[in-house]
């Protein structure tokens, strides 16, 4: 029965490395596909926005843990061997894109209709209208919510333990089961997460204030 010493702390920091890598994967994948989902959701094409809505309902409505499980082991059951990294990338992308898609849909829809109309009246085609006019404004509006989600995603990476990643939380559990000091271990883990997430939250809040000031 070990005590919590330097070794244990280093072990936790090893976990932290994975936590950050996993969050980054989720955010990049979720960002790219989330944009697609958001655009589907604001499309005037019924088939597109219905599929967008169904996508969001399914992947917001099931626990991330189960998504990871199904992607990693469920597909494995079909005889396809999925690499843990790929499983994590897929599951986090599904999860994050559903949430980001919904957040960004809100952002896009809160850009006044007049902006789209002005773009159209100037002859701008769809891509330019989205890229130059709507998305920059939508992103600004949804930035605080986006950062809020990123923080939740950082914490959500703990679930990747199910496919074998020894990230921060799992490392904590392992240390806790060696030292039998779960309270102390989880207090340390909480502090590490806080140190990771708080700057993000602060950045989001300052962004929110800047936006509030910019809007007259």
């Amino acid at each position, binding site marked *: 029965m070990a005590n919590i010493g330097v070794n244990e702390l280093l072990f936790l920091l090893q976990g932290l490395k994975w936590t950050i890598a996993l969050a980054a994967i989720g955010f990049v994948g979720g960002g790219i596909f989330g944009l697609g989902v958001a655009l589907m959701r604001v499309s005037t094409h019924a088939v597109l926005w219905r599929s967008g809505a169904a996508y969001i309902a399914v992947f917001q409505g099931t626990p991330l843990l189960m998504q990871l499980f199904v992607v990693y082991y469920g597909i494995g059951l079909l005889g396809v061997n999925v690499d843990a990294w790929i499983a994590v990338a897929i599951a986090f992308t599904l999860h994050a894109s559903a949430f980001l898609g919904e957040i960004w849909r809100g952002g896009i829809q809160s850009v*006044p209709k*007049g*902006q789209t*109309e*002005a773009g*159209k*009246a*100037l*002859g*701008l*085609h769809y891509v*330019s209208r989205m890229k*130059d*006019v709507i998305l*920059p*404004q939508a992103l*600004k509006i949804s930035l605080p919510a986006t950062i809020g989600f990123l923080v939740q995603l950082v914490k959500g990476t703990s679930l990747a333990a199910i496919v074998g990643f020894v990230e921060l939380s799992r490392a904590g559990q392992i240390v806790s089961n060696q030292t039998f000091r779960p309270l102390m271990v989880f207090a340390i883990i909480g502090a590490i997460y806080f140190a990771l997430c708080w700057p993000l939250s602060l950045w989001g809040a300052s962004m929110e204030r800047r936006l509030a000031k*910019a*809007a*007259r």
Partner: protein
Amino acid sequence: MPNNQSGSEQALIALEGVEKWYGAFHALKNINLSVRKGEKIVLCGPSGSGKSTLIRCINRLEDIQKGRIVVEGVTLDDTGKTVDAIRREVGMVFQSFNLFPHMTIMENCMLAPMRVRAMSKADARAVATRYLGKVRIGDQADKYPAQLSGGQQQRAAIARALCMEPKVMLFDEPTSALDPEMVKEVLDTMIGLARDGMTMICVTHEMGFARQVADRVIFMTAGEVIEEARPDEFFRNPRHDRTKAFLGEILAHH
């Protein structure tokens, strides 16, 4: 009203038997209108009569259910191609400006020329500078819309539309969001444009403006055009009772 104008000048815009429904609501009823190059039309009528709807149909911000809209020989149909072609030739100025808040005035003006006309940055800047000068806000080019007064914003919106060098300009109550003192500067800008020979369709209740520049005043009510006349005639001798009542009220408390 098939196109039986003097013939020397072809109609730049022609609406033939246009009908528009919003769901069950009949918003435009058998609209026939033809506008020659250089002509200035003022559109007025009570609230909800379909003025905005009409001009929004011309550049296809609304679709129509029946009839035909032809702009410079191109008939608007459901293909993106004709819509694009027409929007390139038709500029529009909204009541609420609709400037892009995240771009400076200069960037607002350069965007469409660069993206739609594939102009180089330098060329787009030159064009923008010219038109911003024309509406006399050249010195505001590097500000953001929120830093401008209402009148300046509206003039920037006019410049932005002009940068596409459209054949026609559509104005939808361009002064009604402005306070009394700012109305004048925008009207002056529009009068300047009219003098330069721009073809214009303008929804407005500024009767002084109508008197001064309009070739024709068109009065709508309940989705129909019920009166169409030269301004002097229109003000002096309106034919319909509805027009008389409306004019009475508009002129009364001024």
